[in-house]
């Protein structure tokens, strides 16, 4: 892909190699080697390894040396906790966030009642039943959204349970990861 300002892709123009390594390694869906990560980040091996080592030290990424090559995988717990912190820092009152949680749970109950199922997985299983394509599509869309709502319920619930613990300080340090 080329752009008006040369052969470099937009991502290479607007980001550094270090930033791309961080993007890649914090969004992996399976453990990957430094070579794979460098290739995906369009950066060279040696500086990629240096950045990965630092991210491991910082706790953003975990490494596994048990195989023939070291592999890296993000600590997704850290991302979930940071998302709970972002909800805590969003400026909403505890009452508003509690109302939102109630609303999200009510949506799940409405889907459970409408389709007589307990979970998105069970809803997907009903798609095989004799349904017209429009009904099939609607159920697939709802199953996807249901999963999203369930994920938000877990994170919002965590933020609410730990509301005082997660209270921001006035000199909030710059977070990473």
């Amino acid at each position, binding site marked *: 892909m080329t752009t008006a300002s040369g052969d470099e892709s937009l991502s290479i123009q*607007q980001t550094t190699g270090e930033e791309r390594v961080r993007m890649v390694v914090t969004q992996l869906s399976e453990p990957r080697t430094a070579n794979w990560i460098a290739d995906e980040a369009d950066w060279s091996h040696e500086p990629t390894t240096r950045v990965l080592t630092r991210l491991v030290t910082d706790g953003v990424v975990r490494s596994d040396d048990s195989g023939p090559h070291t592999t890296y995988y993000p600590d997704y717990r850290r991302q979930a906790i940071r998302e709970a912190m972002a909800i805590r820092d969003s400026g909403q009152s505890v009452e508003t966030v509690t109302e939102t949680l109630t609303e999200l749970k009510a949506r799940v109950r409405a889907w459970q009642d409408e389709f007589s199922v307990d979970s998105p997985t069970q809803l997907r299983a009903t798609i095989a039943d004799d349904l017209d394509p429009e009904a099939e599509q609607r159920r697939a869309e709802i199953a*996807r959204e249901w999963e999203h709502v369930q994920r938000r319920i877990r994170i919002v619930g965590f933020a609410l349970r730990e509301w005082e613990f997660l209270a921001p300080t006035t000199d909030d340090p710059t977070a990473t990861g």
Partner: protein
Amino acid sequence: MSVPHPGSDPNARLYAQLKRDVLERVPQITGVAFVPDRIKARKLQVTFAPDRLTPPTGPDPPKLDIVWYRQTPHDWFRVDYVDPNTGLHAGWHQDESHPDLGRAHFQYTVDNTTTRRAATFEHETPSLVLWEILEQLLSTVRPTHQPA
């Protein structure tokens, strides 16, 4: 697919990552909002500055909507650009709607006519895929389909 344990779920921080890694770095973008709000975070809505685009548009700002779910074996996403001034709609969809076109397809609508073709990406990292989409939108799709 069941909902994974939060400690192994790549979705928790995805929209914040796309915002930070990509959208806040694009000079033509003036706003990125979580819709309907930061807590529910159903999708991201991006606002472009009409006069910073090439060719420019206006007076209303074009929007880009992003719905993205991390899942295996492949993510599900819909990224849709709409210019209310010209009616141009361009979408990059990795959904199940057009399996004949492969895993992902690109579609655009001009003058109420929709054209679709297969879409492929060089990367599999969501932030880098979104960079590819924005590059196609800004460098190719808009200049080609936007009346000058």
